[in-house]
């Protein structure tokens, strides 16, 4: 089986009925999709399959053979956050961050689909199946609406990783 994950084609060796979530996390080491409930109930494992938000915990990898998968790692870059990511950053829409990858992907798909400003009710509908246990719904709704209206300035004060560094570290981190 093959998948196009965040733009690169990869061959998959996991058994065909392995949930896409585990293929991404365990075989490909892409840990943006989170394993929350693994029953389809929380939304943290959401990825975009051919542009549509889907629960990767309930998707057998064989069912999406050849599809194009976008995880949070494929949305924006540390140097240039996507509009939705920048809006989440500016609006403090992440607390612990566990729900954030799923929320951002579902919001990205919603804004893409709508192609313009989204209403509060559309956000409630599109993100209704995503739990935020922290629970930052107020700021998440604000962020998604602001992103859809193009109201968010780009973020340029984020630390950028050195080549080969695994993750973005806070400024001046001793690690």
């Amino acid at each position, binding site marked *: 089986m093959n998948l196009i994950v965040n733009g690169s084609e990869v061959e998959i060796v996991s058994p065909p009925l392995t949930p896409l979530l585990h293929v991404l996390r365990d075989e490909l080491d892409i840990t943006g999709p989170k394993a929350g*409930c693994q029953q389809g*109930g929380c939304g943290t494992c959401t990825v975009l399959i051919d542009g549509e938000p889907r629960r990767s915990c309930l998707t057998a990898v064989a069912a999406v053979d050849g599809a194009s998968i976008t995880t949070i790692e494929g949305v924006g870059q540390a140097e240039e956050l996507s509009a939705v990511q920048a809006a989440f950053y500016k609006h403090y829409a*992440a*607390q612990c961050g566990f729900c954030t990858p799923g929320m951002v992907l579902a919001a990205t798909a919603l804004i893409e689909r709508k192609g313009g400003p989204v209403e509060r009710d559309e956000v*409630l509908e599109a993100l209704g*199946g995503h739990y935020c246990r922290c629970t930052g*719904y*107020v700021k998440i709704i604000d962020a998604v609406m602001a992103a859809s209206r193009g109201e968010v300035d780009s973020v340029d004060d984020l630390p950028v990783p050195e080549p080969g560094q695994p993750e973005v570290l806070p*400024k*001046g981190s001793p690690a």
Partner: protein
Amino acid sequence: MAKHHGRGFATIEYPTGMNQNGDPSQAWIKLKPDGRVDVFSGTVDIGQGSKTVHTQIVADALGVPYDWVTMDNTNTDSSAVCTGTFASRGTFIGGNAVRLAAEKVRERILDIASKELEIDPSDLDIEDGEVIARGAPQKKINVADVAGAATYNYGELISGSSTALKPFADVDDATGQVEIEPHSAISYAACVADVEVDDETGEVVVQKLVQVYDVGRAINPTLVEGQIEGGAIMGLGLGLLENSYPYYPSVKHRGGQFGAYLAPALRDMPEIDNVIIENPSADGPFGAKAIGEMANNAQPPAIANAIFDAVGVWLTEMPATPDRVLEALAAKREPTRDGKRVVFDEHLSLKAVSANQGEGFFGVEA
């Protein structure tokens, strides 16, 4: 059969930290030769933002820019001891630890700057990374130069450590009693809930929640607002949807499937309004108190009161599920005791529907 509207409120006071003997949080801060600041503390940020807030506290206490400060709080080898992120102690106790350590570092910076500038330390201030002579702002030295001088000229590693701790109290041998000071800081809050109750289905919808929180000092207003909003929605969950299982892991005290345990989702969101009151505490860092745990406590009783206002029944057990509301409404319509109909009376009915038959409950005289 109709929808009824009601409004209820609840107030709460809540202590900060464990308020027991001990309960330490420690911090250690060192200044690198370029003036940048490394903080080692053990307070874990679980999303409430303590890492940001502690960084702000250190930056403010030292007088250096926020992004000069690096908080290393997740390394269990290098970090100082913190009793934990619980009991609303992060900002107050953990924050005090980093503040006190930063004050010691500040003193050392001023001492060395005073040698370099030949001005008494008591006449110096640190602002935005520069040590400035009070009243003579042209006389100044950058904190980075002070740190460099400390390292290369004076052979000193500028550092400071501190512990925020409630000292152990003596046990009175005669009585076995322990005298401990009262809580270091008490936070106060109120919540107002507007609900709509459907007397046919028993469904309760929370339409609006207003939170008023005395936080002492909002070190980071957006983050504290995030805690208040998050707590409000958690409180809504406790009021309407979520069971608690106090005897978990007893088999009778656990939820079923993930999907059967309801927690608030976006569609349950009421209109939310928050008011942050700053009523500084004498002991907190920059006057801050703590609201971590209290943030979800006032909503369930406010919702219960609003339901009473709407349909005149007291729910004495949360969450206010449709079943419980309908049961209470039925009991109000036709109060029974030992299977006999009894005459309805507003006050007596409180007893009839309460869980313990009114024993010592509302103190209503029969």
